[in-house]
């Protein structure tokens, strides 16, 4: 299997992975842009590249993006992405005291090691889970998709109801086009274009990238990164001091990375939860009177956790076909563009693509190490570009990306309409991820649901008769009961206050 990891690599693929890692670090280092936007922007190039190169490049962005978010968190106290939500607590004061290079070194090296541990977890767990998932028939798959969607909807934002409404909207959109069993045209308003259904790629491009562009038109703020007032050699000394500190904190790295990988594997949880949980645990477990050491641990822990999450998040996407976060949702789109279908059969049907993806992950981690050890001073210069120069180019890339999917302006319309919808959803607290996941998984859910009913001759109790599906539904039931109990408790509290 090891030989398959790197069998797809050639000069083009390696160069694109390197480009992806550097691009990912830069994109998430610029406030207002996220790793998801980075992956979405490079998605149009996937149409023209071979699967190994395009997936390698996107994997590079994923790995680089998780590390890059720490840069603005440390330098200007604004997390570049949700993953770095707690990095600024200790990172910013360190940067203020003239140790910005050291803090950045800590964050980037911990991210690299976290990503490496995440990759090991992915390599070890995926084949086992995939073997188990082979036992899944229509009934089990239906229960699994329902559980995955419910988790994502409930965990993605503060309001559970808004999450579920967003999920239902996604399912509604997924039903547009031909019905998967009888091929009856639905909700197409008599048009042939709508009969094909709404592709989730322009929807993803619009919903993830367009709200940021619209927001930049409304609030024209630009962030100025401070200079570290150090030359290249002095910066490198800070990074190597950070390397020594990270080596001394090996237990923290391993603990945080394992937490990140486990949390990443649960759909809907995301990197912010992984980073916050491991940070809180580190604060409880690490006791030292040395303030600098405690600050270092407070940077190492969340950064290792959020980067290892990338490995964990790939587990359900590759083995079950359920993406757990926005970046893996876009990567699932890239896989389908190349005719690869993630799921239990992926390892046995497309072993080269599967192991190639893991190989790209490993190469991305390698490039991240190199970029961290010698490239931090360059990144600090590169991120000084003003965001306002990037927005028009991003918008044009969104249009071309949507158009390139089927050479059709219909997809451009879809991208813009869903971008505006996402803008209002974000403003009013409706999460976007459940809508996109429901759009991706809706067709599978309906197909498996109706297949199950055909198998059982219309008996809905079939979902409770199969042990795996029953277990999944019990988990779903417990989860929903917990949410309902929490909701009632809040309601009682509100009434008491009134």
């Amino acid at each position, binding site marked *: 299997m090891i030989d398959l990891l790197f069998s797809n690599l050639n000069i083009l693929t390696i160069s694109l992975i390197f480009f992806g890692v550097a691009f990912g670090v830069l994109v998430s280092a610029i406030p207002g842009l996220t790793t998801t936007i980075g992956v979405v922007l490079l998605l149009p*190039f996937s*149409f*023209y590249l071979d699967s190994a190169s395009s997936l390698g490049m996107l994997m590079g962005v994923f790995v680089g993006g998780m590390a890059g978010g720490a840069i603005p968190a440390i330098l200007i106290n604004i997390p570049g992405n949700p993953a770095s939500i707690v990095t600024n607590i200790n990172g910013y004061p360190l940067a203020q005291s003239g140790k910005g290079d050291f803090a950045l070194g800590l964050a980037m090296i911990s991210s690299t090691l976290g990503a490496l541990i995440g990759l090991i977890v992915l390599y070890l767990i995926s084949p086992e889970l995939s073997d188990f998932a082979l036992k899944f028939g229509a009934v089990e798959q239906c229960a699994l998709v329902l559980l995955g969607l419910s988790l994502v909807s409930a965990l993605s934002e503060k*309001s559970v*109801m*808004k999450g*579920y*409404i967003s999920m*239902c*909207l996604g*399912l*509604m959109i997924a*039903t547009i086009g031909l*019905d998967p*069993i*009888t091929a*009856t045209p*639905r*909700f197409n308003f008599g048009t042939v274009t709508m009969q094909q259904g709404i592709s989730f790629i322009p929807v993803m491009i619009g919903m993830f990238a367009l709200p940021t*562009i*619209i927001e*930049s*038109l*409304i609030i*024209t703020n630009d962030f100025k990164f401070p200079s570290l007032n150090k030359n290249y050699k002095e910066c490198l000394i800070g990074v190597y001091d950070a390397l020594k500190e990270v080596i001394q904190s090996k237990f923290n790295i391993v603990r945080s990375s394992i937490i990140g990988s486990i949390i990443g594997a649960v759909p809907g949880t995301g990197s912010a939860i992984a980073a916050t949980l491991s940070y809180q645990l580190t604060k409880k477990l690490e006791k030292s009177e040395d303030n600098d050491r405690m600050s270092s641990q407070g940077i190492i822990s969340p950064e290792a956790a959020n980067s290892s999450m990338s490995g964990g998040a790939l587990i359900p996407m590759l083995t079950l076909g359920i993406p757990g976060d926005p970046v893996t949702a876009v990567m699932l789109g890239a896989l389908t563009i190349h005719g690869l279908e993630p799921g239990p059969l992926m390892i046995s049907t497309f072993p080269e693509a599967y192991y190639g993806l893991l190989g790209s992950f490993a190469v991305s981690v390698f490039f991240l190490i190199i970029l961290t050890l010698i490239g931090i001073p360059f990144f600090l210069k590169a991120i000084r570009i003003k965001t*306002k*120069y990037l*927005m*028009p*180019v991003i*918008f*044009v890339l969104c*249009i*071309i990306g949507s*158009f*390139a999917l089927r*050479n059709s*302006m219909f997809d*451009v*319309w879809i991208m*813009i309409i869903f971008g*505006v919808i996402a*803008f*209002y*959803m974000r*403003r*009013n607290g409706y999460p976007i991820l459940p809508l996109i996941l429901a759009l991706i998984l809706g067709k599978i859910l*309906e197909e498996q*649901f*109706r*297949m199950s*009913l*055909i198998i059982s001759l*219309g008996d809905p109790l079939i979902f409770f008769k199969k042990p795996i599906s029953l277990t999944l539904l019990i988990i779903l039931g417990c989860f929903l009961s917990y949410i309902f109990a929490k909701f009632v408790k809040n309601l009682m509290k509100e009434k008491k206050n009134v």
Partner: protein
Amino acid sequence: MLKITEELLFKTLISIVFFIYFYLSLKFPSIPMQEGYGAGLFPIIISVSFFLFAMKDFFTNDRKEFNKKENLVLLGFLIIIFIPIFFIDYLGMYFVLGLFLLYLNHVLKISIIKNTIISLVSIIIIHFVFVKIFKLSFPEIWFME
């Protein structure tokens, strides 16, 4: 008195979409047939679930005030985007993209000279990367066809 907030308008819009969807769902068969349940079953289940979730959400407090200025900026953006895209078969992709670049650079307060240079360079790069290298065919200006 009922205060019109952005959230209320958004929720009303969602509700209208729901009612249209539910009405259309009823037009498809949902009874058991020879090939299983009809095409209407799944949309009806979604509609019912949506209704249950939305009922609770609809009556929660609306906090987001209606911001006239921000919505006008968005409206302006949409008008400037939609009109050229509607006439793209006559205007051509390069012209439309160039127009968007100039407009967005202008709104983001980039000076005219920088704006022109950035827009031109972007269009040239797009042409070389997507058309020359990736062989993507854009809609062209009507008189070029």
